[in-house]
Structures are given as C-alpha cells and as structure tokens.
C-alpha cells in the first residue's frame, strides 16, 4: 500500500528533476549570477535525492519485512534500546551533508552578492529600480533617462540595480539573470547581475503588494552594447522630459503600460539615504555621513 504512495511520489520527484534540467525559467540562466544559483539548485537536488532514496528504501524494507502479516503469529518483537554506532551514523552522515552544503552556500552567496563573475574589473552600469503600486520605475542617472515597466541593459557588462520602493515591500526578480532582492521604502538595496546573451527576460515583483500585485511585471531586454547605445541615443532624442508633476501622477496606485522619459526622478525625489549590501561604493567612510544625514532627516521631521 505504502509502496504505491512511495512509487507515486518518486515518479513525481523525478518529474521535477527531468523537466527541471533545461526548460524551467530558473534553471535556464542567461547570466553568471543566475548560473550560480542554478548550479547550486541542481547540486542540492542531487544531494537531497540521495537522502530521499535512502529513506524510501529503508522505509519500504521495514514495512515489507516486518509487517505482521509476513511474520509468525507468536513472534514477539524484541526490546531494543538503541545503539551507539547506529546513532553516530545517523548524526554523522547528516552533519557531513550539511557541512558540504554549507560550504557551497557560503561560497555561492558571496558570489551572487558580489560583482558578477568574469566582470569584476568592469565599470558597472548603475540603474535605479523603484517599485510603486503596481509599477517599476527605472532611472539611468548617467544616461539621464527613465523608463516605466521595462528596462534595457547592455550584454557583457555588469549592472548594478539600486532597489527601493514607494510603498510596500516589493521583491525585484528577473529569474533568468539573478535571484530576488527586496525593494523597500527606507533603504537602497543593491542587486548585481549581468546578461551574457541578448534577449527578452521576464521580470516581476515577487513579494505581495496588494491588489495589482499579479500584474506588477516588467520586461528586461538585453542588447549588445552597440545596439544599447543606439537605443539610449534614440530615447534621449525623442522622449518627453519627466517633470515632478508627471512623476507624482505615475506614482498613483494603478497599472501602467511601458513609458519612456528623459531626465530621472532622482533629482526631485531622491532615493532613501541608507544603503545596504553595497560595500565598494558606499563603504565605511560614508557611514558617518549617512548617519548624520538621517539624523538631520529625523530632526526635521
């Protein structure tokens, strides 16, 4: 009986692994950060599969072999207190597995938090991504343009997304390029990523923000550097300027299509002053300055 169940669940488990290898978004990375996470996921799946198989086999053996029906009527199960060696194995092997996975975790976490592998020495492109109910605003301070609900990035160049929110906590997620990070009202988070292949990638808010949450998505288009440059110049030549009034209108709760402006909202609606996870650019020397800033802020309020 239980065998059926076990067979059933293992078939399902295998389904995940088999279909998972190529076609699933998260396991189809297009940049070094997502590649790292995809590798970690696959390694952990295989490791965990060993444990699952061991437990399933042990369970099946026990249930079949020691079933009352398969035993003599007068069989009295013995009293077994426990065995030091068995317990050492039961503790020891999981500890070894956990250590193995810990090493992978720590290494890969530092990797995805830092600059993308292979682009350590390149100058990153900084893009501010702010969430508001239920939109994403992308500001390019260097290029001096702003887009809503879509973002263009050059391939083969590290991108630094500076994340924050007007309103509830949102989670910035482009599964094929990198894992998530929160966009919050009171601090700026940094997400590092790079795209190795040109293409269109799905991006969305993954953290529930209320009524329009399901549609709070955006498109990421990765272009070869030359095409990207053309796009920038085109926008700079054709788009309307973003005024403060216009930006406040954009912030109103609701859904919007894709929009494009010259200028950014950073001048009149600057991002929060506290930074997290951006060691190189906002290192210790800035902290004191920031603390003073925020203290002044709270005094004013």
């Amino acid at each position, binding site marked *: *009986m*239980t065998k059926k*169940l076990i067979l059933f*669940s293992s078939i*399902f488990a295998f389904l*995940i692994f088999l279909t998972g290898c190529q076609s699933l978004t*998260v*396991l189809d990375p297009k940049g070094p950060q997502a590649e*790292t996470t995809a590798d*970690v*996921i696959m390694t952990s*799946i295989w490791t*965990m599969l060993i*444990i*699952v198989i061991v*437990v*399933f086999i*042990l*369970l099946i053996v*026990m249930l079949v072999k*020691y*079933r009352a029906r398969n*035993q003599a009527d007068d069989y009295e*199960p*013995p*009293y*077994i*207190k*426990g065995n030091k060696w*068995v317990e050492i194995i*039961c*503790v020891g092997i*999981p500890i070894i597995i*956990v250590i193995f996975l*810990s090493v992978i*975790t*720590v290494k*890969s*976490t530092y990797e995805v*938090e830092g600059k993308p592998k292979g682009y350590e020495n390149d100058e990153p492109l900084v893009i501010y991504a702010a969430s508001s*109910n239920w939109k994403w605003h992308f500001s390019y301070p260097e290029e001096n343009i702003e887009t809503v609900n879509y973002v263009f990035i050059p391939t083969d160049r590290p991108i630094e997304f500076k994340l924050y929110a007007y309103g*509830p*906590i949102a*989670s910035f*997620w482009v599964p094929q390029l990198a*894992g998530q*990070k*929160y966009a*919050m009202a*009171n601090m700026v*988070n940094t997400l590092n990523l790079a795209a190795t292949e040109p293409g269109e990638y799905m991006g*969305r808010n*993954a953290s*529930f923000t*209320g009524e*329009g*949450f*399901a549609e709070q998505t955006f498109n990421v288009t990765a272009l070869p550097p030359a095409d990207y440059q053309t796009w920038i110049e085109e926008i700079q030549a054709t788009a309307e300027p973003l005024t403060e009034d216009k930006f406040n209108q954009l912030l109103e709760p609701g859904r919007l299509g894709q929009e494009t402006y010259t200028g950014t909202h950073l001048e009149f609606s600057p991002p929060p002053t506290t930074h997290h*996870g951006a060691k190189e650019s906002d290192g210790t020397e800035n902290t004191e300055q920031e603390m003073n800033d925020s203290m002044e802020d709270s005094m004013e*309020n």
Partner: protein
Amino acid sequence: MEFFDRFAVPNPTFTIYASMVAIGLTMLAILVGITYFKKWGYLWREWLTTVDHKRIGIMYLISALLMLFRGGVDALMMRAQTAIPDNTFLNAQEYNEVFTTHGVVMILFMAMAFVMALMNFVTPLQIGARDVAFPRLNALSFWLYFMGAMLFNISFVIGGSPDSGWTSYFPLAGNEFSPSVGTNYYMLSIQIAGLGTLITGINFIVTILKMRAPGMTLMKMPMFTWSALITNLIIVFAFPVLTVALAMGTMDRLFGTHFFSIDNGGMDMLWANFFWVWGHPEVYILILPAFGIYSEIIPTFARRNLYGYKSMVISIVAISALSFLVWVHHFFTMGQGALVNSIFSISTMAIAVPTGVKIFNWLLTLWKGKIEFTTAMLYSVGFIPIFTIGGVTGVMLAMASADYQYHNTMFLVAHFHLVIIPGVVFAMIAGLFYWWPKMFGFMLNEKLGKASFWAIAVGVCLAFFPMFISGLDGQARRMYTYSESTGFGIWNMISFIGASMLAIGFILIVYNIYYSTRYASRDISSDPWNARSLEWATHSPVPDYNFAITPEVQSLEAFWDAKKKGHKLFKGNYKEIHMPNNSGVPFIMCCFFFLLGFALVFSMWVVAIIAAIGIFSCMAHRSLEQDHGHHISVEEITKTEEKLGGAKK
C-alpha cells in the same frame, strides 16, 4: 446611518451576502434548537463552565474541525481560481482576502487548536494527573482562543476580511495601504487567541514539571509528553514577541504611532523580524507535538519500544533551541548581506540533523517489529516519505543563494505545505483515530479511515508536487491569476485536482465521525490498540478524575510493563479525590474580550472601555472569590468505577 456604514463590507459580492444570510440562519437555528431541546442548562453546566482538561480538549477539537472546514473552503477557492489561466471566478481583492484568511485560520485557529486539543486531552492522562495545574486558566485559554477565532471569522461579513497576507508585512498592512478594518481584525483576534496560547504554555509547563505520577522521572516520560513540555517552553519564549509585535501594529493602526510605518522614523523591516522571531518557533510549536504523536503511534503498532528514546529527547531539545536562531531565512532577500545570510543558512540547515535523527529512529522502531496497518499507523508511516521530501526541499531553501530564486514562489508554497500537512495534519488525524476511543468510548471506522488516508495522501502529492515545478518556472505565490503564455496552467490544474482529493479525504473523515457515532460498538476495552502508555490504563471514556488511584510508575513504558512484566500500577485503596469546581467566569471574561476586540476593530472607544472594565471585574472577582473545589467521595468513586466496567487495579 454614518455609524452603521463602517460595518459594511467594502467589497460586497453575492457570495458574501449569501454567507451573511447563511450565518444568520445557522445562528438562529442553533439558538432555537438549544431552546427547543431545553439544552441551555446542559450546555452551561457541562461545557461552557467546564474546567475539565478532557472536555476542554474536546471543545478545542470541535473548533479545530470547524476551522479546518473554513480554511479548507478558502484553499479550494484559491485552487479553483488558479486552476486555469485568466480565470475570473475570484477578483484580485477576493483572492487576497481568501489566501490571507486561509493562512491565518489554518495555522492559528486550526493547527494550533488541534495541537491544543490533543495536548489537553492526552498529557494529563499520560502523566497520571487528575487535571492540569491551573484548570480554570485552562478554560480561560480555550475561551480566549475561541473568541479570537470567532472575532477573526466574523470579519468577512462585518467590515471586511484582512487582505495583506497571513504575514501582514508592514507597510502593506498599515493604514495607508490597507485602509479597511480587515487588518484590525487580524491584529486583535490573533492577539486575543495568542494570549490564550501563552497561558496554556505556562499551564502545561507547570503541569508536566510538577504533577507527574510518582516514579515518573523526566526520562521516564512518554515521548508525547516530552514534546508537549518542549512545545510549551517554546510557546512561553516565542509568544510574547508576537504579543508585543501585534500590540505595536495595533497602535500603528488605531492610534497613529510609527513603529512600522515608512515615515517619521518607523521601520517596516522590524515587523518582518518580529513576526518571524515568533513565526519560526511557531512552526516547531506545531510540529513537535506531531513528532510526539508519531513517537506514540509507531511503537504501538510496530509492537516495539521506541528506538533511541534518549536521542529523541535530545533531538527535540536541540530543535527547540535552533528554532529561535533561524528566523532570518524567511527574508534572505532583505539585503542584510552575504555574511548574515551565510550564518542563518548554516543554522537553518543544522536543524536537518536532529530532524534526520528522528526520522531514522522511527525507521529503526519499525525494524524487527510486527507492523499492523491501522489508520493511525498508515498516517504515521505515510508521513515519513512525504515529510522527507518536504524536509529536504527545506534544506534547499535554507541555502541563501538558491533561496533568492525560491523566495516568494510556488516552490516555497510547495515546501511548507509538504512539511505542515504530513507533519502536522497527518499527525493530528492519526492522533484523532488513535485517541478517539479514549475520548468517546468507541472506535472510528477503520475502513473509512484508510480510504481517507489514501485520498489525502495522494491528494497532497498531486496538489503540491506540481508547485515545485511552477515555482522553478517563475510563478510567484499569491498571484490571483496568470496568463496562458506563462505555461503555469497545467501545473495549477493538477494542483486543483489534488486539492479536490484532499477535500474528499476530509469529508470522509467527517462522515466517518458521523457513521461511527451512530453505528460503532460501545463495547470496547479500555486498551483497544494494545498500547504502551498510561492513558490506556484508565477507563474509556475517562472518568472525571482520570485515575481512581494515582498510578505509580517504574519504567518508561509503564502500562506496557504492567501488562507484560506484571508491574503494579495502582496500589492501595480508593481515597477521597479533590477536584476543581466549574466556573463560568472564564467564559464571561472572554465574552468581554470578544467585545473589547470588536470595539477596538471599529474604534468604538466607549464600548471598549466598558468591555475592559468587564474584563478587570472578572479578574477582581477571581481574586476575591473563595473556591476550594469539591471532593468526590469513596462511595461515588466505587460506583463510577463499577459502572465503567470494574476497578482498575
């Protein structure tokens, strides 16, 4: 009219109006029914005023089943809505309300109540006590929970349901983004129920530490009692955090403070931290008693002692300590950096070690046993494979870098359902079948029970395995709909089919209760399973005083050794038994709590002040009251024992 406007539901639909009518009619039918059958006196004397841990346990059980129905309907609605792409069965607002109430009801009002039900009923019996240490507080705990649950449940017909998720993250849950009273209901009803839980925690720690039968040292306690002790310790450490967080949240919403707001120095991240400092231990508050139940049932039906008792005890103690050190893994993506995330990744994965020890010990308990597949045992061994999959995916989620991709996706939803359902729900159903004869003096039908197991086990797999896939394919949780081009449709449809099978399984259980109540034989022994611990040494159903003579314990499996080795449990003769009196004060006090909660939800200050005065009056009454309990005479004990089938010697 303005006064009444506030009670209107902000997003009324036909179903809500229909529910209002249905609720009104049901209430009326209950009131008329009780009056017609002249049951008011019975209800008041035997149930509303009772301080008996067994009756309180049964009331928790009934409430848990009611809440399971409510939460289950919510779940079915969610699965039905997402079964096909671009579905319009529910709109976004309705879906948000439904998943919020599903989470709160299932965790706090169903699973917690179920755990409390079995802990209340079983623990005093297992340690050979006559009741808990503070019987009246125990009644207070139950009524606080019950009133909290009721307050939460009326939200959808009066004022509107909460809609910011069961985690209610600020600033989303603040007034600016959640202007309806729904989140007030969330804050206040969980607060009221949480106070009850905290009181239970203190009550049971004292009970287990001070009221064990003579000879029952800590290391001779049955595993379920151990798990109850550790669970209640976690409650006492974790729930005050929730109490404080909810109080701060309430003040933000009602009095304009700025603890969690995004302006004026508020810190939205603080709520997430508080919530999970309580929330993660809460998971273990649910799962440890479940582990305790499995540790009772598996040895009983493997006909063998529990393998590695000592390592089982050490592992639950280890789990309880670690449960407080992992809360950050719920928001690795908040940007605290690689170092902090690495530390919390490792502490989270460390929990896999003691949990693994427990799994292997249960497997080794089956070794050389003589396994009998009763319904309770089926649920217990069915738990192992499904929970293992849920557990190992938990280890995968613990790896911070990978979690950046799993966070807030259906992968996470699949994981926690695959630990909570086999871990908690299977255990509660197994415990229900196992202890039912002790509660009511008859057994639940085994055939229907096994059918329910297969429906539920297959249903769980079908409902939640596909979510691993859709999660890895980019489906975020809490999305009320998705477009066809995403390709999530097929996985969600399978999920819906699984959820329907789960529903069938639960209906089978309810039908089983009805069927067995009508047709099952009342002529069963007090030990129908040939079990091993003390609760089976007294009559079924259990008399008021539990044991006519307090048992004396010499070994870990006291009752088993009494049967097999001839240890004598009950020595000496009947003596007068001192028992606590019933009291209506806990019930009345909690009615005031309900009123207080309701008044605060709608900012009706005068009513709130009156209710608060009522609460303090009840407390003052208790302080000034002379109540020394009552005594059951030797003759009465002899009479009761004979009626129940002869003295237990």
